[in-house]
């Protein structure tokens, strides 16, 4: 059993290494290969890009993880919270039909809409169906339907054209040694890290945050301690929706706004959450960061189109070694 596990891990690792080795063998034919004077610089650049991608995934994934932690629902529509946030900000900010707000107030409004959407799903879908005794698997399927519905509403309203926000569109990179980063991307990364720190402080130091962790740990006991569990769950939905919308704006800023951006990001969120350890908010952050870095670093050797696939491969490899995820704990027996 153990042998098999090590073997599979080795096989997967081999798969990862193989193209690198062949690229090295090709030598000068492959100027973008891992050898050559500029490789260190490019690797550093990919690392920086990866961290940026990772913290954005993390912002969107934390809500998904908290919802799963408190009510054990896998919310397949979480990616659409991201899309709705990004496209709503686009409408307010850059659409010819919109009011043409500056991006900052538009982003704030998008976060508010995301929180509202989270609350609507709680009140309109989760709570009534749960009260009727709908099972978690059935509810998971319901969220798949909700995801389709929301995605296509966005498609009708927004269209298929990729969009960019009106401000901070084109910027030249500032050089930091071998690494170049635009002030926009740097700001987004720093803001994203600050938001993640804020979420950690909220969960760790505030009464409401502790209540969220208490509900995740033991719902009945939380109720027995006088915590209004339904209100805590509503709070988690709103927090998750708001964070997803913010992540959507960030992702739209550094990449582009599209009607299916959240759906594409959803896979990365799942990977990050599972990698970090299901149900732990900090695990979701750590896992997302790893996924982002792996996805970007893989472009050093492989086509950009495959970067998501590499992220998922790393997920499989890590789970083979640590089935409970990076920060997850093995279930205590007894």
């Amino acid at each position, binding site marked *: 059993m153990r042998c098999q596990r090590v073997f599979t891990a080795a096989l997967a690792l081999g798969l990862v290494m193989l193209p690198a080795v062949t690229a090295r063998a090709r030598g000068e034919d492959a100027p973008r290969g891992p050898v050559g004077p500029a490789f260190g610089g490019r690797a550093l650049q990919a690392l920086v890009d990866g961290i940026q991608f990772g913290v954005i995934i993390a912002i969107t994934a934390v809500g998904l993880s908290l919802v799963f932690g408190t009510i054990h629902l896998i919310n397949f529509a979480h990616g659409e919270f991201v899309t709705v946030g990004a496209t709503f900000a686009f409408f307010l900010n850059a659409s010819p039909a919109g009011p043409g707000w500056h991006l900052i107030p538009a982003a704030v409004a998008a976060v508010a809409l995301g929180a509202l959407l989270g609350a609507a799903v709680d009140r309109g879908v989760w709570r009534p169906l749960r009260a009727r005794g709908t099972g978690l698997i059935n509810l998971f399927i319901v969220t798949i339907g909700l995801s389709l519905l929301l995605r296509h509403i966005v498609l009708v309203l927004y269209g298929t054209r990729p969009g960019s926000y009106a401000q901070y569109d084109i910027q030249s990179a500032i050089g930091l040694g071998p690494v170049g980063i635009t002030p926009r991307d740097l700001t987004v990364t720093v803001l994203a890290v600050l938001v993640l720190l804020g979420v950690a402080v909220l969960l760790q130091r505030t009464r409401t945050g502790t209540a969220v*962790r208490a509900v995740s*740990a*033991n719902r*009945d006991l939380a109720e027995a301690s006088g915590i209004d569990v339904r209100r805590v769950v509503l709070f988690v939905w709103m927090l998750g929706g708001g964070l997803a919308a913010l992540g959507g704006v960030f992702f739209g800023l550094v990449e582009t706004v599209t009607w299916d951006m959240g759906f594409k990001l959803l896979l990365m969120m799942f990977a990050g959450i599972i990698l970090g350890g299901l149900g732990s908010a900090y695990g979701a952050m750590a896992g997302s960061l790893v996924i982002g870095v792996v996805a970007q670093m893989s472009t050093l050797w492989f086509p950009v189109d495959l970067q998501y696939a590499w992220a998922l491969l790393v997920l499989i490899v890590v789970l083979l070694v640590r089935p409970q995820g990076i920060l997850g704990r093995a279930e205590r027996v007894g």
Partner: protein
Amino acid sequence: MRANKRERNTPVLAAEGIVAGYLPGVDVLRGCSIEVGPGELVGVIGPNGAGKSTLAKAVFGLLRVRAGTVRLNGEDVTGRPAHELVRRGVGYVPQLQNVFASLTVEENLRMGVYLRPRDYARRAAAVEELFPVLAARRRQKAGSMSGGERQMLAMARALMTEPQLLLLDEPSAGLSPLHQDHVFDRVREINGAGVAVLMVEQNARRCLQICHRGYVLDQGRNAYTGRGTDLLHDEKVIACYLGTLARAR
């Protein structure tokens, strides 16, 4: 004067004809009644699966009551959610998973007094006096504590709100005889301070020894009711529920 007298006679908890269960159409409790007077220590014993834990959950609002009424100080609270009962002065310690394992001891106590965060310091000092072992372990994760320490923490958490009624579901389960004595001593101490206690126990003899009154529950119904020491010497109760070894004492 009269109002005062009525207050004295109104039971803190009066559950009447409780019918409740988990699966649709299957009643675990089939018309169960129970009463706890002010300052009383009441024990509930019965065989495994009799519905003792179910009764505690139904009374506390964690399980929907299908028929019957639950009154708190004469006021009907049937079907009210648990967090509301906490606000009305009821504390509950479940049989299993009675602490927040991933939270620290301090956070567990803070959650105990969630509705009145300002009282934390005062109440924490009070329960730490009752359970000194907790004071030294504030930063320890509850999940890493021993079974006995957890039981202490679970009781401390429930006492944080200064309840007037405490529901304890098998507080001595899984503890060594010495720790069991310790727990029962604490329960008596808590009760001595004026808190009404309803204690479900597997350790029937010990429970009936310290209880003012006891109920024997069987298959979701009351089988016997009486003074703790009377039940302890009742031939039928001994034969059916305490085991014949009990007679030796």
